[in-house]
Every structure is written in structure tokens, then in C-alpha cells.
């Protein structure tokens, strides 16, 4: 398992003695995996040199930023990218920011907000890399997945440095598709495996107009943060509807009228998680909110560019909601709770309170597609959770799911969680069975479930994409040193 002295020395020569460690004692902190060593490269040149050595010694590697849980192969090299943490450029005129992998979304967002800009903070949370691929609360107005990556500096699994898009023909980062090589399908594809082999060492991220303050007026002491005032021309509301059909009707119209800064198809369990500071409080709040809603619902943030713009958007929103028989959840109109939700959803991207806090683990099935159809699939997956809830194996969230439209459209993401205690083997087994059964059903019913390790199922539905992908991978990674990808983790 351990590296030979010569191999260790070769890597040590690249990063320096202080930035390599193969002591087994540190490995439990790295995802409970027996890595051959952990390395902390500082720049692109070091990453390239490491990858070339990986090819020379046939050693697989995996780059990681801030982390989260994950499964990793024993004996591989772990590239911890935390020393690559610079914001290279914020280009206000052309609306992009160039960052290294360990710049977290909260950092970049805070810098952007000072200049009237912001970015898509992924659902994993603002504590994760700003380069992360994926979706988040702000997808309505900031899109998701491959749409936010512009030019990328990429060290391939063979150790070559590739500069995509405009960076391939100039020093400019403004476009991912040219003038210069467009490698969109390889670099930023949403199709599983969704992780490009090699390491992204810099990327230009698309940024968007921010109509809010340079800084949120936070008050209080953790965990009781709130806003001293709701920023001018901002409003957050939760609406519930008599039926799923009515909810989707309103969601669709809100998208078409382009009035929502954010629309998150939360259930009240997730609202409860976000506005509370402990598990006990969350449980009680969920029960209370469940009694207040009339049916399924969503959370909306309206952000106006001016008082008139805000008034117009608000008026349209209220009209659409009323037409669909929607009702605002009165208790969330309290400015304190409204402020907490504004901050949670824009600055935090929720995440940890609603996923890990209850039991320590969650298992998720995310599905991309037309929202009204994917919601129908999720209702079934939610019903399948009910026996597990009844047995006390997973957290009672009413069997709920969540989701949202991307780019104000009817296409979007729908997702469903089971939150559970991973130390309970019965719960773990039940959740795994639920996951397998429901993801199988998704594929069978031709839904596009974004699940790692399911390439074949998806590939068959997409012109045998997986076969082509495997061929590309062989070309990119002839020595199979980056079999699990991981360029944007």
C-alpha cells in the first residue's frame, strides 16, 4: 500500500516535504480510505508534475477540494487542492470570475456582491468549491451544470495542460467554446460520470447580475443569525397549493414571466430544517408547518432592480399564485424567518442542516427532466419512503421531494432524499434497497437519473453514450491513472 522510498521522494521533490504525507494515521480523516499518500500541490505546474509521475509509476490519483463524503479507491493518491485557493480575476465587464479549485463559493460570492454580481452556488453548499459542477437554489436565474463554466485550464490524465475555449487561442477566459478548442462534452458534461478525468486547475465561472446589497446586514450570534432588515426590493415567501398540478401550473407561469430570482420546490420539511437550529426544534417546526400548508408548495425569492421592478414582479407573482389557488405560509412572512431563509438560500445554499444534521447521512436520487413528469416519478419515490418512515428507519419528512426549474424553464431538477443514521445497519440496508428500487424504476420509466455508476443505464438511452465515453477515456487516460475522474469535486 505504501509508496516505495524512491517513489515517495519523487513526489516529495515536486511538492516539498511539508506537503506530502503517507502516514496511515491521517488516512481516516480522508474519507476512511487507505490512500497511498496525500499530496498538497500549490499550482498547475505541480499538478502536472504529479500527474506525470502517476503515469510513470502507474498510480491512480483523485483530486478533491473541500470534500464531503465519498467513495475512493484504496491505494490511490489523494490530491488535496486546498493550497490552490486564489481568485485570479473578476471581470465585471465580461461577467466572469477566474478561480482556482479551492476558492469556496462563499468567498467568491462575497467578492462578487461588492460589485453587483453573483454566481450559482451549488446545492452542496457555499462551503464547497466555486468551480463545482451541478445545481443549486439559484438555478432559475443562474442556470446550472455545464452552462456556467467558460474557459478552463485542465491538466489531462496524461499530464498535458489543455486550455479550452477562448483561452486556447488567447489569454482571455470569456468563452468555453471558442475561439479555440471547445471541449464542452468532455469537460463539463452533465451526463454521468459527470466527472472529467484529470484536474481542473483554473476555471472561468460565469457570473450574473446581483440586485441586492454589497453585504447582507447579518445580526446576532451563531447559530441565531438573522437580517437586521430585509434588503430593499427583496421578498421571500413560501406558497402551498391544493394539488401538485396547481403547484406546477404556478411554477411554470412564474418561470415564463421571469419574475423569480429563485424558485425552490421545497417541501416544508426542508423549510423547517433551514429555519431551525437543532434537530428537536426542526421536528417540532416540521409538524407545525405541515398543519399550516394546504398541499405541496415552493419557496420564492423576488429581487427587484428598482422599487417599480419589484412592485411589478410581486404583483405578477401574487396574481399567478392566486390563480392557482396558492396560499402564502403566514408564519414565514415574519421578517425574521424571511431573512433567515433569504440568507440560507442565497448565501449558504441550505445544504447541511437539511441533509446531514438529522442522522448524519442522506441518500439522494436526483433526476433531470421536464418538471411535471419528474415530479410524478418523485411522488412514487416519496410513497416508497413511507414504510421506512413508519419503521423509524429514516427521518420523517412526509415522504417529500424537492426540485426547481432551470433558467426559468419547465426543464429542471427533481430530487428526493432519505435522511438516516448510517451507524444503524438496518436503516442503511433499507435506504440502499429504496435507492436501488427507485433508481431502477427511474431508468425503466425513462427518467434521467444523475447517478454515479449508472453510466450503462443512461448510456443505453442516449445513443450508447457510455461506449463513446469509454473510448474517449482510453484516449485521454491511456494508463488509467484517473479512472474515477474527479476534476470538479
Amino acid at each position, binding site marked *: 500500500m505504501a509508496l516505495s522510498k524512491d517513489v515517495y521522494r519523487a513526489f516529495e521533490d515536486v511538492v516539498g516535504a511539508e506537503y506530502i504525507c503517507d502516514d496511515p494515521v*491521517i488516512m*481516516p*480523516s480522508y474519507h476512511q480510505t487507505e490512500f497511498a499518500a496525500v499530496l498538497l500541490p500549490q499550482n498547475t505546474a505541480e499538478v502536472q508534475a504529479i500527474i506525470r509521475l502517476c503515469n510513470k509509476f502507474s498510480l491512480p490519483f483523485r483530486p478533491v477540494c473541500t470534500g464531503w463524503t465519498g467513495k475512493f479507491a484504496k491505494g490511490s493518491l489523494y490530491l488535496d487542492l486546498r493550497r490552490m485557493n486564489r*481568485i485570479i480575476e473578476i471581470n465585471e465587464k465580461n461577467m466572469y470570475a477566474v478561480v482556482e479549485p479551492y476558492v469556496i463559493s*462563499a468567498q467568491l460570492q462575497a467578492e462578487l456582491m461588492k460589485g453587483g454580481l453573483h454566481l450559482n452556488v451549488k446545492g452542496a453548499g457555499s462551503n464547497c468549491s466555486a468551480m463545482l459542477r451541478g445545481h443549486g437554489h439559484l438555478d432559475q436565474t443562474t442556470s446550472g451544470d455545464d452552462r456556467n463554466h467558460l474557459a478552463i485550464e485542465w491538466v489531462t490524465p496524461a499530464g498535458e495542460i489543455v486550455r479550452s475555449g477562448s483561452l486556447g487561442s488567447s489569454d482571455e477566459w470569456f468563452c468555453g467554446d471558442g475561439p479555440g478548442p471547445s471541449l464542452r462534452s468532455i469537460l463539463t458534461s452533465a451526463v454521468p460520470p459527470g466527472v472529467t478525468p484529470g484536474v481542473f486547475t483554473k476555471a472561468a465561472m460565469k457570473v450574473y447580475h446581483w440586485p441586492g446589497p454589497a453585504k447582507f446586514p447579518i445580526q446576532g450570534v451563531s447559530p441565531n443569525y438573522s437580517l437586521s432588515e430585509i434588503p430593499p426590493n427583496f421578498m421571500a415567501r413560501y406558497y402551498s397549493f391544493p394539488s401538485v398540478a396547481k403547484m406546477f401550473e404556478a411554477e411554470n407561469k412564474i418561470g415564463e414571466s421571469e419574475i423569480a430570482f429563485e424558485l425552490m420546490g421545497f417541501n416544508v420539511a426542508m423549510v423547517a430544517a433551514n429555519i431551525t437550529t437543532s434537530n428537536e426544534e426542526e421536528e417540532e417546526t416540521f409538524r407545525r408547518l405541515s398543519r399550516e400548508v394546504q398541499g405541496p408548495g415552493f419557496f420564492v425569492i423576488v429581487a427587484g432592480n428598482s422599487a417599480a421592478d419589484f412592485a411589478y414582479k410581486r404583483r405578477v407573482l401574487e396574481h399567478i399564485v392566486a390563480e392557482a389557488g396558492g396560499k402564502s405560509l403566514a408564519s414565514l412572512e415574519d421578517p425574521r424567518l424571511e431573512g433567515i431563509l433569504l440568507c440560507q438560500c442565497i448565501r449558504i445554499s441550505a445544504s*447541511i442542516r437539511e441533509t446531514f444534521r*438529522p442522522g448524519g447521512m442522506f441518500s439522494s436520487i436526483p433526476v433531470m427532466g421536464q418538471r411535471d413528469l419528474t415530479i410524478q416519478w418523485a411522488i412514487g419515490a416519496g410513497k416508497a419512503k413511507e414504510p421506512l418512515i413508519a419503521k*423509524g428507519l429514516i427521518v420523517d419528512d412526509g415522504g417529500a421531494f424537492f426540485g426547481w426549474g432551470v433558467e426559468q424553464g419547465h426543464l429542471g431538477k427533481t430530487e428526493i432524499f432519505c435522511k438516516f443514521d448510517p451507524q444503524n445497519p438496518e436503516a442503511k440496508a433499507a435506504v440502499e434497497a429504496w435507492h436501488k428500487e427507485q433508481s431502477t424504476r427511474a431508468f425503466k420509466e425513462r427518467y434521467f437519473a444523475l447517478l454515479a455508476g449508472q453510466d450503462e443505464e443512461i448510456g443505453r438511452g442516449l445513443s450508447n453514450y457510455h461506449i463513446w465515453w469509454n473510448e474517449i477515456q482510453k484516449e485521454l487516460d491511456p494508463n488509467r491513472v484517473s479512472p474515477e475522474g474527479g476534476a470538479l469535486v
Partner: protein
Amino acid sequence: MGLEQYKGDMEMCCRCSTCKFIPMQRVSGHDFVNVCPSISRFNFHSYSGGGRLNIGAAMLRDGFQYTDRLLDIVYNCQMCGACGVSCNYAMDMEVLEPIQEFRIRCVADGKTHPALDKAIAGLRAHGSMVPPTGKRGDWAIGLGLKDATREKVDVLYHAGCLTSYDPSLQKLARATAKILQKAGVNFGIAGDAEICCGGRAYQMGYQEDFLRQARENMALIKQAGIKTVVTACAEGYQAFKVLYDKFKLRGDLEVLHISEFVDRLIQEGRLKPRKKVGLSVTYHDPCRLGRLGEPWVHWEGKKVPGDRFVFDPPKTYRRGTHGVYDPPRNVLKSLPGVTLTEMTRIKEYAWCCGAGGGVSESNPEFAQWTARERIREAESTGAEALVTACSWCEKAFDEAIRETGSALKVYDIVELVEAAIS
């Protein structure tokens, strides 16, 4: 129970890395986003709060394997608790407590650090965490203070080891005494009979030495009939107020930091700062006055079987919410001519001065590195001076300033109060 009682907490860590950063809402830019000195300096995840819990959980499961690297991880931590505050914004789990228990376990297993052993040997020999430079009560010569072990007083001022013995910091003890005299407080000191509070020994993992100090201190206090103890050092404050309570040794003794007491005296009109100080300052929250100064919460119970990490009876976590944050700020704002500008990392998510957890003894270079980072942050405010409320912080900052040549001045809050009332 030791480390074992926190098995469930350690297993709850989801490796999200929030323990490395200040709470996300408080991130105001690219700089000053880190909250944990250890992971910031040493970079490997094992030096973070979460990494320490992951290792603890693994060792409980697979057995303890001590290596030089493990001990390097264990002793390169200021035990400042910032990781726990950031984690506990979202999570219900203990963070600092298992890290503390891990260190206690190392000491119990004889896996100590030579520099800490030396400090503890000094404590056992002299009742002090710093080498004596004379008699403990020498700092009070000429001030005419009451001996609380012989005379009836309302308040005992516990000066602490560093303030008592360090010639450059004895001015803090004298300033504190003058403030109390000016306010007409019936107070006394234990003088040569004063001994270490034991707090730093506890941080270093020497629980038995801490308990010995705590019992001796409480015996002295009980015998003298003391109802209120005032400390001007955050280490002593946390020991008397929080740790003695944790081990059910404090009884109903009132414990106040001098900043709380001065705030009270000003509000009651017993102290009137009238003289213009004329200084722009920024304030450093000492860890053990701020987030770790919040009261201990006694709790015993069991995990409720099932899907959630909840307990019967419900457990109240100490998340840094109720630390001492406003009193020192109130005091500074009441001083004529003092303008306060805040740093980015303040209150519950303040960056540590570097001196805690025995790091100033075991790895002075790391302690200095940590202090320099705080000096850099203080300089970014444009303030002329960095004010703190703990002699250990002042010492760390003074050394960092000497090394960097920074023009920033460092004061303890009592120095400014003294200037405003003299």
C-alpha cells in the same frame, strides 16, 4: 467515559469542511475566511476539527496507534473551539469536547509533549504555568491591597500566573487593582498564596493536574468566604467559570471577567471614565472569554433510538452563542476618545491569538504564525491599536509585533480603562 462518550458525535462528522471556515454568512470576501489556525498552517485535513474527529472515531474502532505524526496533530491545536462554532451553526454534535478527550487520552497513555511535560512539572513544583520570577504577590507591593485569605472582602481578584510573574505584564494586574480601588470595590488578592487556576493544564490534556488546582483554589475560596472572583485573564475566567462548573466544583461562586465587572461598574455609575484616551482601536475576542466562556450546560441522557441524533432529555449544545462579547465592547465605547473598528473575524468566530492549548510552549513558531495572522487582520482595519482582554493574548501579540515590526500597538482593556479614570 472519556473519549468513548463522544463516539456518536465523532461519527456524525460528514466531512463538509465548514469547521475550517468562519460561518458562511459571515464570509465577507476572499481574505480572513479561515477560522482554524491548525488546518490553516498545516493543511492536511487531519489537522482540522473534522479530521480530528474522523481520526478519533477510527481509533476507537480500530485501536490507538500512536505515531509522531499523530502526536504532531494532537499537540498542534490551540483548542480554541472555533471549529465547533462553525460546525454547530448547522450540526448537532460535540466537536471540541472529543478533541479535548483525545488529548487527555494521549496524556493518560504517556504520549505527551516534552515542552508540556516541562510546563506541568513547573506547575507541580511552583503552582504556576510560568517560571516564577520572584514571589507571586510582588506585583502588588506598594498598592495597599487587602489579603483576601486574612481579611473579609467582597471580591477576590485572581491575577493569574502570567500576569503575576511576567515583569512586562504585571502592569495589567496593577491596572486592574487601581480600577477596582477607584470604583470603591471591597476586594482583595491571595498574593503569594494564589496558585494557578489549572485551565491551561486542562487544555494541554493534564486533567488530574487541573483538578488538583481547581480543588485547591476552591478550598481557598471557601475558607475565605469569597462569593465573587474577578479575573483579568481569559484563561482564568474560563477555568473558574466554565471548567470548575463542568466538574461540579464551582458551587454558587460568581465568576466575572474584569470587562464584565467594569461594564457593570460603569453602568452603576461607580466608575466614570472621563479622561480622553484618544485612540482608534480594534478588539480581539480571547477564545476563552468569548466562545469558550459561555456557561457550562450540565446534561446527562441517552440517544433516542431511531433515525435522528437526538437525546432524552434533549441536549443543549454550547455553540458559542453565550460568550462574553458585549461587555468589553461596551467598556471600549464608554472610554472618551476611543473609536472601535471591528475586524472581519470577531466574537464567536474570532481568530485565536495562538497561545492556547499549550501551543506557545510546544510549538512557539506556530503560535507566532497564528498571532501574526491576527496582527495582519487588525492592521487591515486601519486601527492604531489592538485591544485584548487576556494577558496570554497580549504576550502573543507583543511578540508577533516585535517580529514583524508592525506599527500596531497592543493594549489590554484594563490599560485603557486605567488611562481613562486616572
